[in-house]
């Protein structure tokens, strides 16, 4: 099978699920990686090192920033000339959107957020979670090319082989008047991206619940609540940084203003699948579980032994997070020789 893999990146930093997609493509045959941007030749090198046989490199000032229309049209121009059998995208915000548009341009469908795929001859059947992971569906597509987006961390990342190389082909960016203009970015500065994180420490409403903290004077009731929550998240962040983990949150914590929405895990937040997910002061509502139930190992710290989170947890501590978390951070630092 001749597979194209879209390499998703932000200012030249690839999202690791792009390499996972190359790994999947390699298991099916020849892989051509698509690298679109401006000054992104090093990404082509990295794509080769992760297994790409060929790279189609579209480098142009007009591709400096991701814009759906310019990127989708560049892709359409290439695919309509040399149609691949399969187009793979990582299920990132950009990857999902480009896959959606490519399906319209190439008159086919998208199988989205796929967690497993089975190939018999040229028949591909995928598996993906629906209803927030409450069910799994198996899907096939009757038209060509096949377009699939792969859920991050559902497939292994191939080993990077330094110095491995392949055929680099420069291709043209789409010309035309794409009316969307990128004015700039505000970056969250939140460190490790949740979807790619191998470990996540998440805090819930419980982190605000420490009567021993004395808020600064002059705050109203609402501000005191936010202040308490933020103090709680200091403990969550300390634990996360000791482990090199990303920081997540429940919706209750986000809605109460303890931490920005980008950190929210769950049905109306991010779907994550780390090796280890540590839930601190989170009850485990079904909408929260929708975002993290596929984590390999779930650790729950909650003072309520009846909290539903314990039903998914591999390890649990029934206790006061304000006692356990600082002690855990210290113990981990010591064990890890920090």
């Amino acid at each position, binding site marked *: 099978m001749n597979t194209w893999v879209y390499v998703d990146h932000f200012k030249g930093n690839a999202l690791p699920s792009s390499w996972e997609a190359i790994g999947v493509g390699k298991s099916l045959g020849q892989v051509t990686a698509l690298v679109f941007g401006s000054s992104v030749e090093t990404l082509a090198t990295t794509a080769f090192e992760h297994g790409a046989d060929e790279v189609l490199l579209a480098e142009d000032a007009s591709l400096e920033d991701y814009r759906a229309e310019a990127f989708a049209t560049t892709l359409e121009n290439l695919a309509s000339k040399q149609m691949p059998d399969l187009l793979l995208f990582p299920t990132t915000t950009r990857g999902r959107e480009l896959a959606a548009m490519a399906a319209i341009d190439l008159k086919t469908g998208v199988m989205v957020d796929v967690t497993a795929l089975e190939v018999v001859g040229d028949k591909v059947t995928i598996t993906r979670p*629906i209803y927030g992971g409450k069910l799994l569906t198996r899907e096939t597509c009757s038209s060509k090319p096949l377009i699939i987006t792969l859920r991050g961390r559902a497939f292994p990342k191939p080993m990077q082989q330094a110095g491995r190389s392949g055929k680099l082909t420069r291709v043209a960016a789409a010309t035309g008047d794409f009316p969307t203009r990128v004015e700039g970015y505000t970056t969250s500065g939140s460190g490790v991206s949740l979807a790619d994180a191998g470990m996540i420490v998440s805090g819930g409403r419980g982190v605000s619940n420490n009567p021993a903290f004395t808020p600064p004077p002059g705050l109203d009731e609402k501000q005191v609540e936010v202040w308490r929550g933020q103090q709680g998240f200091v403990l969550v962040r300390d634990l996360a940084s000791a482990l090199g983990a990303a920081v997540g949150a429940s919706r209750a914590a986000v809605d109460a203003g303890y931490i920005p929405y980008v950190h929210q895990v769950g049905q109306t937040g991010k779907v994550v699948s780390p090796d280890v997910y540590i839930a601190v002061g989170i009850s485990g509502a079904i909408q929260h579980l929708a975002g993290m139930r596929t984590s390999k190992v779930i650790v729950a710290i909650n003072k309520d032994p009846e909290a539903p989170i314990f039903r998914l947890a591999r390890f649990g501590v029934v206790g006061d997070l304000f006692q356990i978390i600082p002690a855990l951070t210290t113990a981990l630092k010591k064990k890890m020789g920090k």
Partner: protein
Amino acid sequence: MKIVVCVKQVPDSTAKVVVEQGRIIWGDAPLVINPWDEYAMEAALQQREALSGTVTAVTIGDESARETLRRALAMGADDAILISDPGLVNLDTQATAQVLAAVIRKIGAVDMAFFGRQAIDGDAGLVPAQTARLLGWPALTLASVIKVEGGSVHVERGIEEGRQIVTAKLPAVFSMTKDFGEPRYPSFMGIRKASRVEIPAWSLAGVGIAAPVSVITWPEIINPPSREITCEYITGSNPDEIAEALAAKILAEKVL
């Protein structure tokens, strides 16, 4: 400003959804408006408040989907259209987008089309960009801030790295995320008004298109393998002892 909001009817997010004899069932949980589409409604209503104009809610569904349109009306939509036809079952996202694009064209002179980020049943998140592509309009997806000035629009879009700030020209397609702001609750007056609004139903012939062809099929839907997990509770005589034992367990799992 002529505004369309596409809303879908889905089982409530707290429903226990399972497969029995190949069919998806959700017990007696109610069907509700897709929660993300409430954000789309909120965004649309705010635009109408700022710029004046009308908000039309549209859904593709069966007769029962009228309830979802009533919810949109109760929130404040001016009118609603049900798109219903025997040819519209088991649609994949590109087929859905074809119908919605045709409906938006048919309504005519639409400036803004709002969508939810994704439908919580199929979890696809594809229809907004697909509809935009079919219409040839900018896809301003995952929007959290929208400001219209003259014929152009300023949007902040959520991306993995934070927010991307873009400007584009109307007409355009928008999909909404949660950090736009909480959707309003229908008022008592709104609910009363909604119950009196006549909701027209358009068939495919009424929209003026042939039945779209779905290319994705789902021959099998299954319950996920149950995770047989017994929680190992870590105990100890004091927090340090518990932390020590838990740290060892975590490090044993950590892929270094």
